[in-house]
């Protein structure tokens, strides 16, 4: 069932976009399409935001791009990998995914959670026994320190605050060494100033390290300040794509209106 084509043989790599989706159709149950003929092309090195009312299919789109959901029709190429079925481990090394609920292991410490990001690189018996190479541990500690969690490395996740957990999730994704990060409304539980701080940190990394970031976000203020480009999804279709700067407040309202302000994703 797994057919994967790795297309970055020659020096073509830099030219292929981070995400290229053509005519993507996806349904959880036969006939009930959640994504309908989605077309999307995200160039490398930019920060793109997907907006839309609840139930528009934002989370589904993210999961499909992360290789976590099978789809019925269309082609999806992410970082040069043509997705179909379970993606290979090499794909996991270049694509990071932060789910809405973060997916942290509550009973492990912040440091241990971050180290999980290195598992894709270490197939040996060491990590299974709880042993990671010294340089990976150092790196994990560095990321935590960089995100202001240096003193929380040994704290279990269930003892961390919401904002601290978000940062652990970011550090864990960075640990993967990804070139593309897919993030699903992962700051939606935070208040605006805190969400803004987290997102500024992330944008800094995107710029500095040349990463690509595609995320679901519903806070219009944040989108206008941070995003390069906005995609609006409505009822499974993309109804608008354009530079974030070109949109005014009223445009945002009109495009993402769903009667009752939609927040949580599906």
């Amino acid at each position, binding site marked *: 069932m797994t057919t994967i084509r790795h297309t970055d043989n020659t020096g073509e790599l830099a030219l292929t976009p981070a995400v290229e989706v053509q005519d993507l159709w996806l349904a959880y149950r036969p006939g009930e399409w959640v994504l309908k003929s989605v077309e999307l092309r995200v160039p490398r090195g930019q920060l793109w935001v997907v907006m839309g009312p609840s139930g528009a299919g934002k989370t589904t789109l993210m999961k499909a791009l992360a290789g976590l959901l099978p789809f019925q029709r269309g082609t999806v190429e992410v970082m040069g990998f043509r997705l179909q079925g379970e993606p290979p481990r090499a794909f*996991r090394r270049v694509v990071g995914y932060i789910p809405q609920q973060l*997916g942290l*292991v*509550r*009973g*492990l410490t912040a440091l241990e959670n971050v180290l999980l990001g290195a*598992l*894709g690189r270490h197939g040996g018996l060491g*990590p299974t026994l709880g042993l990671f190479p010294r340089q990976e541990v150092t790196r994990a500690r560095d990321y935590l320190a960089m995100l202001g969690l240096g003193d929380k490395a040994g704290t279990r996740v269930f003892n961390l605050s919401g904002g601290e957990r978000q940062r652990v999730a970011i550090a864990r994704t960075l640990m993967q060494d990804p070139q593309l990060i897919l993030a699903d409304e992962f700051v939606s539980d935070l208040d605006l100033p805190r969400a803004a701080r987290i997102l500024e940190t992330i944008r800094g990394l995107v710029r500095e390290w040349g990463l690509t970031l595609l995320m679901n976000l519903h806070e219009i203020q944040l989108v206008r300040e941070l995003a390069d480009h906005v995609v609006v999804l409505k009822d499974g279709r993309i109804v608008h794509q354009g530079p974030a700067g070109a949109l005014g407040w009223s445009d945002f309202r009109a495009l993402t209106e769903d009667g009752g302000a939609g927040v949580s994703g599906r």
Partner: protein
Amino acid sequence: MVGPGFLAGKGREDSLRRWRDLGGVLALLLVMGWILGRMGFFEPGRLAGGLVNFGRFAAELFPPDLSVLPTVLGALAETVEMAFAGTFLGFLLSFPLGVLGTRTLFPRPVVLAVRFLVAMTRTVPSLLWAVIMVIVVGLGPLAGTLALAVYTVGYLAKLYAEILEGVDPEVIEAVRGLGARRRHLVRYVLWPESANAVLSQLLFMLEYNIRSSTVLGLVGAGGIGFYMQVYISTLAYSRLATVLLAVLAVVLVMDGLSAWVRRRYLLQG
């Protein structure tokens, strides 16, 4: 408030249901009465005579003959060893089998095969396992230990599979998305997220095995049960009393100990 019309319609239905329930209860009572009657429960002299016999038996139990105490304590130590060793062996097998029986981790055929195997194990009671093990490895505590281990697998593997399936699938999905292999998921997601419940069930199983290990000696599978049988068949009831009191003490101590472990280690977080 409900209107009268509503009450009338609803009331009829209600009274019908009440009559049906009453009929059900009466039928159940009749069946139970018939079963008990067949056993002689309603024969006038029988239970009364039993009561007299029980009084005589109880009188012969006391005072307990403490001269057998050294023998009894030795056998009791063997019983406790059997329970610990059997629970330990059973746990070593149960956790991996529980993992193999987790639908979020393994394909359906594997899960079904494992669960079927475990269910088969569970249908045989521990005393019968002891008989089988005595036949297989001979008389003595090894047979009892193996019997307890097999019986433990039947219960713990099932419970563990259920506990492991209760772990948030989004966390498993997220960590799998990091490139983790299955053994990593077991080590870093399933174990830390379920360790408390896993250990708690293990303690429960240990308590249970302490209790059931005391009777395995009845079929020659080692431990204190052997002396129970000897003292019963030689009508040495005052010696039997010593055995029973010693067993009671051990069970109480073990229950207290495991309650303490639970409070001390498992309730935090």
